[in-house]
């Protein structure tokens, strides 16, 4: 990785904090892309200096080396990144550098004194996407292609299915996992096989699925980012994860000197603006009936108001899921 951002090298001159990120995957992969986007925006606004290293992967010792190098050589105020699959390494380094705030995407809990965790808690917008999908399907078969069936993926997929079945109990969801975080070609092939099995709406938990839906003239739902631009005629909406609230909160904490390790889950949920539903794209092929849009917006409002709670279900949703 490299970056643009401020040219200011020092760690804390005139209150500009330095943040260095370590990504296991590459920044074009949406999960890390969301974090990168938020940090880059802060850097462009002059609020932080930002550097990153990406594509570190899961080779033995690589992630720990990258994070240690950052801690040793850049001495930043904050190290962010995703420690999924490199959990042990990240936590070990954090213990050795108690003065640096470690803020990591993680499936585990926070660790004293300086290891905070966040995650993409976008099951709420996923539920609402599901409502749209359940209303729009004609074959009552929905195709879902996920990365690897880990709890954080499962809960999004399950929420999507629950949402669909809440408005249309006949919905059958076909779920396939490509067992990779980023393999658009495999994801597309899996999506095409679901389409051939009758799916007429596709949920693109991973990259590659929207392309399949677009090729077959079907509707699709994006994940992590607003992915409308990939295929404006196909993408109804996306479950968007927004890291800005998390980043802002952490910056304030560190600036104020009151940073402690914590679970930042709330900042990635709808209530605090960390999760949202992208603007519903009524321009897709065949359009979207107004009452369906209304239903979705109603559900979203209810979630914001706290009157609708979306269940968290982290069980593996395998094969075909019917109610």
């Amino acid at each position: 990785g490299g970056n643009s951002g401020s040219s200011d090298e020092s760690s804390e001159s005139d209150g500009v904090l330095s943040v260095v990120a370590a990504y296991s995957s590459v920044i074009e992969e949406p999960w890390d892309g969301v974090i990168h986007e938020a940090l880059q925006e802060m850097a462009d606004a002059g609020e932080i200096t930002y550097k990153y290293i990406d594509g570190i992967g899961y080779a033995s010792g690589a992630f720990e080396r990258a994070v240690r190098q950052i801690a040793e050589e850049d001495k930043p105020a904050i190290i962010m990144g995703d420690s999924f699959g490199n959990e042990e390494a990240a936590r070990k380094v954090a213990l050795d550098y108690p003065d640096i705030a470690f803020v990591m995407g993680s499936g585990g809990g926070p660790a004293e004194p300086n290891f905070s965790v966040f995650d993409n808690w976008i099951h709420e917008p996923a539920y609402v996407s599901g409502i749209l999908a359940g209303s729009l399907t004609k074959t009552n078969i929905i195709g879902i292609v996920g990365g690897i069936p880990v709890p954080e993926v499962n809960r999004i997929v399950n929420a999507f299915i629950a949402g669909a079945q809440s408005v249309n109990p006949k919905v059958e969801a076909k779920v396939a996992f490509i067992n990779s975080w980023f393999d658009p070609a495999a994801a597309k092939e899996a999506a095409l096989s679901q389409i051939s099995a009758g799916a007429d709406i596709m949920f693109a938990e991973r990259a590659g699925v929207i392309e399949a839906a677009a090729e077959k003239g079907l509707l699709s739902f994006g994940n992590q980012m607003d992915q409308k631009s990939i295929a404006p005629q196909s993408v109804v909406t996306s479950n968007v994860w927004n890291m800005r609230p998390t980043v802002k909160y952490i910056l304030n904490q560190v600036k104020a000197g009151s940073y402690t390790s914590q679970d930042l889950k709330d900042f990635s949920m709808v209530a605090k603006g960390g999760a949202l539903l992208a603007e519903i794209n009524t321009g897709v092929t065949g359009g979207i009936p107004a009452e369906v849009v209304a239903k979705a917006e109603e559900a979203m409002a209810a979630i914001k108001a706290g009157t609708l709670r979306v269940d968290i279900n982290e069980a593996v949703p395998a094969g075909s899921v019917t109610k």
Partner: protein
Amino acid sequence: MIDVTEEIISSSLRIATPLALAALGELVTEKSGVLNLGVEGIMYGSAFVGIATAAQTGSLTAGLIAALVSGALAGLIFAFTTVTLGVNQHVAGLGMTLLMISLCNTANRIMFTADGGQVRVDPWQPLNFGGPIFSQYLLTYATFLVAVPFVWWLLWKSGLGLKIRAVGENPEAADVAGIGVAKTRYTAIIIGSLFMALAGAFITLAFVGTFTVNIINGRGWVALALVIFGRWTIGRLLIGAALFSLVNAGQLQLRLLPSFADVPFEILLALPFLAVIVGLAISGRNVPYPGAYLKPYKRL
């Protein structure tokens, strides 16, 4: 619901396209006595160069041409090191693969992904002649209707093919017959690289319309396996490609069934490699390697 078998066949053809193209390229190369382990890298390079050019010029055709040029260039470098210099073919091939992958990843970062974006083009769409089986990309039709007969004609019917085979079997004899061994091997390597480049371009320009790290994902190694599985004949090579693609497409369908949720499909994906090893073991001492396989030739 659409007929599943029909869809599996359709999907197999799609999966088989880059494999068959790359394997044909490797076949032409190996028939000249040269093992090109750079196949994975050449595919990677053309996949990237193809889409990068298409994105910059807005023309998929320009992308395809650029991909072919990149393939030819990579082939040229490989030919220079192995034919002219006589470097170990396996070392040069692995080097080529590592070079192309690291070069493209670096260029991709510099050109397209520095701010988290990704290169995208509107890819070629399948041409629909009715039914899922006949809804395929132009390149898929071209592969099976043009490239396969062409390579068959090239290797077994044309004068160049005769030269390639002679050079691969007995370079000394070919040399004495007045055939430029180096020239013929360069030609075979470059023709082979062009097919590998087509295979790479198919993945980005037709199939996914984007480029990501690890886009080739071992397809080059599968192509290599297919050539040996096919005992250096086109018919058997195609049978191998068909079997592998059917297994691959079939497992994607099987994954949809609840009872198969826990089946380790990785074993199925390992099949082509294992099939080659078993096949070699069964043929025993009768593996029809080209006579000059892996041997550099130098006149004194």
